[in-house]
C-alpha cells in the first residue's frame, strides 16, 4: 500500500490544464522529488495532494483511501511552504503546537509532542521567540517542526530551500535528507533545482507541461533520460542533442572527449571545432560545433582542466573528439527515447 498515489489527476484553470494527467505512486518512506521548470504544474499538483486545490478529475489516494473530497485537515498530510507560512503573531512554541490544537489534542500531549519535534530539529532554545526574531535557517526548522509534529502520513515540501542563501542551501539539503531518513516519513519534495533533486531524491519525477516525463532514480534520470526534455533539463551543461536523419542522438558534455582520452573502447568520432571556452576551476567547458551536422548547433564539452593546456584551446581549431558508444543516446523524431543500449 502506497502512502500517496494518484490516478490520472487533471487540474484545469479555466480551459488551461495546469496538471494534465499525473499518475504517480509514492511508497511509504520514500523521498520523492517532483522536478520541473516553473509553471510546469508541480506546485499545483502538490496543492492538490494537500487539499488546497480540488482536482478537475482523477483520484487521489492517501494511505490507500480515496480522499478526493476530504478537507485538508482530515488528510493527514503536512506541508511546508516556500516562504514557510509561519504565524508571525505566535511564538515558535505556539506555531508548532497549532496543528495539534486544531485537532483538539489534550494540552499535556501537545506539550510532549512540541518538545519532541523541537528536540528533533534542535530548536528547543527558540521556543519562546517569534518568527521575525529568527534567521532563515531557523525559520525553516520551525516550519519543518510544525509540519512533523503531528506525524503526517506524507510530508509535502514546496521549494523549501529557495529562500536560503547558496551556502546555507547546501547544508540544509543534507540536513533535510538525513532528517527524513531518520524519521522515515514519506516525503514529496517540489523543486526546480536539479541539484536538490539529484542530491536528495530516492526517486525523481520530472514534470513538464503538467505531465510526468519520467520517474526514476537519479542515476536513471541522468543516464537514461526518457526524452529530449529530461535530457536537456537535467545536467549542467545539458545533454548535447544533435539532429540526424531519423531522429536525434545525444551525449553528455562530460562524455564528449578528445579522442586520445578514450582508451580503445568502441566510440563514435567527431571533428570538433572549438569556438570558445570557460575555465571554471574544477573543469573547463568548451563550446563549438561538430563537422557534418547543423553548424548552428552549439556542442558543449566538459573537460578536466588539468588535461587541457590553455594554448590547446584555440578558437577556430579543429580537434578529433569522440563519444563512447555506451554513452550515446538515441531519440525518435518526436523526442522520445528510441532504443536502449
Amino acid at each position, binding site marked *: 500500500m502506497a502512502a500517496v498515489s494518484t490516478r490520472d489527476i487533471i487540474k484545469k484553470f479555466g480551459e488551461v490544464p495546469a496538471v494534465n494527467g499525473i499518475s504517480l505512486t509514492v511508497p511509504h518512506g520514500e523521498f520523492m522529488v517532483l522536478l520541473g521548470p516553473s509553471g510546469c504544474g508541480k506546485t499545483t499538483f502538490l496543492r492538490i495532494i494537500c487539499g488546497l486545490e480540488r482536482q478537475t478529475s482523477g483520484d487521489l489516494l492517501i494511505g490507500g483511501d480515496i480522499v478526493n473530497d476530504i478537507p485538508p485537515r482530515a488528510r493527514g498530510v503536512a506541508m511546508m511552504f516556500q516562504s514557510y507560512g509561519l504565524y508571525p503573531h505566535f511564538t515558535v512554541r505556539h506555531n508548532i503546537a*497549532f496543528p495539534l490544537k486544531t485537532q483538539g489534542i489534550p494540552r499535556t500531549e501537545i506539550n510532549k509532542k512540541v518538545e519532541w519535534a523541537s528536540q528533533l530539529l534542535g530548536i528547543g532554545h527558540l521556543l519562546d521567540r517569534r518568527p521575525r526574531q529568527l534567521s532563515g535557517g531557523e525559520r525553516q526548522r520551525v516550519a519543518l517542526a510544525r509540519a512533523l509534529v503531528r506525524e503526517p502520513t506524507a510530508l509535502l515540501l514546496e521549494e523549501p530551500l529557495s529562500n536560503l542563501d547558496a551556502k546555507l542551501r547546501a547544508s540544509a539539503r543534507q540536513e533535510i535528507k538525513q532528517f527524513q531518513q531518520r524519521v522515515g516519513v514519506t516525503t514529496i519534495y517540489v523543486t526546480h533545482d536539479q541539484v536538490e533533486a539529484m542530491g536528495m531524491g530516492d526517486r525523481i519525477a520530472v514534470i513538464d507541461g503538467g505531465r510526468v516525463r519520467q520517474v526514476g532514480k537519479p542515476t536513471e534520470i541522468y543516464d537514461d533520460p526518457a526524452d529530449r526534455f529530461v535530457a536537456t533539463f537535467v545536467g549542467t551543461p545539458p545533454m548535447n542533442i544533435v539532429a540526424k536523419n531519423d531522429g536525434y542522438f545525444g551525449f553528455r558534455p562530460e562524455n564528449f572527449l578528445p579522442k586520445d582520452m578514450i582508451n580503445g573502447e568502441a566510440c563514435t568520432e567527431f571533428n570538433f571545432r572549438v569556438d570558445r571556452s570557460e575555465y571554471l576551476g574544477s573543469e573547463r567547458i568548451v563550446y563549438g560545433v561538430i563537422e557534418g551536422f547543423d553548424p548552428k548547433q552549439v556542442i558543449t564539452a566538459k573537460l578536466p582542466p588539468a588535461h587541457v593546456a590553455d594554448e590547446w584551446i584555440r578558437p577556430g581549431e579543429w580537434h578529433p573528439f569522440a563519444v563512447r558508444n555506451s554513452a550515446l543516446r538515441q531519440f525518435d523524431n518526436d523526442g522520445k527515447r528510441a532504443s536502449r543500449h
Partner: protein
Amino acid sequence: MAVIAEPIVKPASRFRFILDRRDMLGSIFVAPAILYVLLLVGVPLLMAVYYSVSAYTIYNPTWQFVGLSNFVDILENPVFRETLYNTFIFTFGSQILGLILGKFGALVLLRPFPGRKFVRALVILPWAVPIALATVAWQWMFDSLYSVINWTLIALHVIDRSQAPNWLGNPDLAMLSVIVVNAWRFFPFAIVIFLAGITAVPQDVLDAATVDGAGFWRRNYQIIMPMILPIVAIGLIFGIVFTFTDLSIVFLMTNGGPVGATSVLGFQGFQTGIVSGDVSHGAAISLFMLPVLLIVVVAMLRFIRRREI
C-alpha cells in the same frame, strides 16, 4: 572652418542649487502643513485654553482669570456628567457596530461574485454622502409618523401599528438611532481597513493554517484577526477620535434630545459656548475631550506597538 559655440557662462550663485538640498526642499514642502496646523489648530486651541480659565461670555467679554473654577462648575453639573456618559456610549457603541459591519462587509466583498465592483463602489457611499443630507434622510426613516422602518416592520407583522416605536422620541431608542447612523457612516471606512488588512495577510500563512487543520472560524479569529489587529486599531483610533468629537449627527437629528439623552460633548460645548454665549464654560467642556482622547489614543498606540509583528 569649424565653429565652436561659445559656452554660456551663468553667474555662479550661492543659491543656485538651493532647491537640490534635501533639508531646504523638505522645509519648503512641509511649511504649508505646519503653518496650517499652527494657525488653524494651534491658535484656536490656545484660545480655548485661555477661555476655559477666564470668565469670558459674549455678554461680558472680559479676560478675567478665574483659574479652574469653570472645570469645577461643569464637573459638578449632572447634565455634563450625563453628557460625558452619552459620549462614551455613542462613541463605543457606534465603533463596535461599525467594526462588526465592516468585518462582515469585508468578508462578503473579498470573494469574487458578479457585480462585486459595483457593490464595492456602492458601499463607499455612506462615507461619501454629505453628512447633512444623509442625516436628513435618516431622520425621515426614524420619523414618528412616516418611518419607513416602522412601516416595514408593521407590513412584516413583526410589530403592531399601536406599538410602533418612536425612534427619536424615546431616550434609549434615540441613542440607538444616532449610534446606528454613525455606525452606518463609519462602516465603509471599516470595510476598507479590513480589506486592506486581510489582503496583506500572506497567502502562504492562510494555506498553512488550512493544511494545519484550521477551519473558517479558526483561520479568521486565530490567524487573520490577530495579524490585522494593528491595522484595525489604527482605523479604530481614527473612528474614536472623529466620533468622540463629532456633533453633526446629534445636532442634525435629535438636537441632543429627547431631554438631553443624546447630548454629546461636542454638542454641549457648542450649545453652551456658541448658542448660549457662555464661551468660558463651552471651552472647558470642549477641552475635556482632550485628556480623555489622549488616554485612549496613547493606550491604543502602546497596544499596537506591543503587537507589532
